[in-house]
């Protein structure tokens, strides 16, 4: 038992600090991806409901592709494919040296693209749930389309979308475990490396399980707090 604790200790003898560094990368990657993925997802959702056939077409193609591709493939496409594209463009302009996309950014873009595709469906559902009468009412009051969205639709949107988006967040948190293939040392990367050296798979995979669970339990708590806040105008009649 003491030996196992030593393996998890901080410093040069134990893997505690490495695992913590990995967990920090996991959570910061997920947090950095979230706003960009959700905002992009909302844009795709608005395109889905646009009048223009072309915009609707683009949105459909986008969600079809990025919901269909395995996340690992998307990651490869962004990290390797996009990198080659950037280098070719860089060289075509005759610029000296080279432009490098850091693995963290590549991971953010790839996971963000996938998150956008999945969350756009949640946004569409939320947008559909807001009754037509509200838009007509806003129109009657003389609000422009932009104002209607900003002041009438958006504030209500979060309340409806939150449970679905919470799901998307949980999935994103787990998908970050794929990023070690692009040389980003996340929690799974360090867990695997520690296991290879110490031959204690149950200890390290067990600890990784606990850390992932800790992340998801605390985000579940955060999410229900958010849900309460966004629903505060709706609590009435014995339902709190």
């Amino acid at each position, binding site marked *: 038992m003491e030996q196992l604790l030593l*393996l998890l200790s901080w410093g040069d003898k134990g893997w505690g600090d490495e695992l913590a560094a990995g967990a920090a990368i996991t959570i910061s990657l997920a947090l950095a991806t979230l706003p960009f993925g959700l905002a992009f997802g909302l844009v795709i959702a608005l395109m889905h409901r646009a009048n223009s056939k072309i915009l609707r077409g683009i949105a459909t193609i986008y969600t079809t592709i990025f919901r269909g591709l395995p996340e690992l493939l998307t990651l490869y496409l962004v990290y390797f494919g996009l990198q080659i594209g950037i*280098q070719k463009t860089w060289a075509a302009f005759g610029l000296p040296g080279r432009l*490098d996309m850091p693995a963290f950014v590549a991971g953010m873009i790839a996971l963000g693209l996938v998150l956008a595709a999945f969350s756009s469906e949640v946004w569409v559902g939320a947008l559909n749930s807001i009754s037509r009468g509200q838009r007509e009412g806003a129109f009657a009051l003389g609000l422009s389309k932009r104002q209607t969205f900003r002041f009438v639709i958006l504030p209500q949107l979060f309340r409806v979308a939150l449970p679905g988006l919470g799901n998307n967040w949980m999935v994103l948190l787990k998908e970050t475990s794929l990023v070690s293939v692009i*040389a980003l040392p996340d929690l799974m990367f360090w867990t695997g*490396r520690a*296991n290879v050296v110490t031959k204690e798979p149950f200890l390290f995979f067990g600890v990784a399980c606990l850390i992932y669970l800790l992340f998801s339990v605390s985000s579940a708590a955060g999410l229900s707090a958010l849900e309460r806040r966004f629903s505060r105008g709706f609590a009435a009649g014995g339902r709190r």
Partner: protein
Amino acid sequence: MKRLFRTFATVALLAGSAALAHAQQITEIKIGTEGAYPPFNNLNAKGELEGFEIDYVNALCAKMKVKCTWVAQDWDGIIPALLTKKYDVIAAGMNATDERKKRVDFTTVYSRTPISFIAGKSVTSPDISPAALKGKNIGAQGSTIHANYLEKYYKDSNIKLYPTQEEANLDLKNGRLDYVIADKLALNDFVSGQGKDCCKFVADIKRDPAIHGPGVAMAVRKEDTALRDMLSKAIEESIKDGTHKKVADKWFTISILAD
């Protein structure tokens, strides 16, 4: 217009001369490795890379008077990352196979180790012919020469491929596999440690040059011929002057430049 042209010409000249200088003198090399293949290369509890390849290549770098930095990259994607210039050299226990030579160039071989089958203790026959292993579950790490070897000769066996060697070993231990094939050195670690109670060596295989290639070498991009020749020369010298043996003896009990 004329001025614009002149600016362009100057920029082009500068870029050209920079490229020329780079070709003449290599002063810095970025090396990619897996960091999950002890005792060749692995990450330790300090969060640092260690192993034969780390010590050996660092010794070569010191001799060549170049600055070497390391990157740990998962095995899948280790060649694409080289091709997209995330680093310049792969030193990760990689066998110089013909299949890989289509995409990268290899230096002189610096390691050639036996390849073996291991199995559960209940296996008594040393026979590892494809006929004897028909219908058995055999595991190996995917995208390796061992996987290719199984796919060529053991078509009638049940082949299971894993992302890392560790997972194949674990599945042999818990009984999902009957045999595991890999580099003898890597397996020795398992058989004398974690797999002491469950597993044992069965036999070494006969190398198939078409699959196994000449041995382990460093990989570089095809266009980097100067770098390749520089590394090859350093490897040859290190084998002659005993540097290779000195480093190898620190990490291995048997010769890693056999046959």
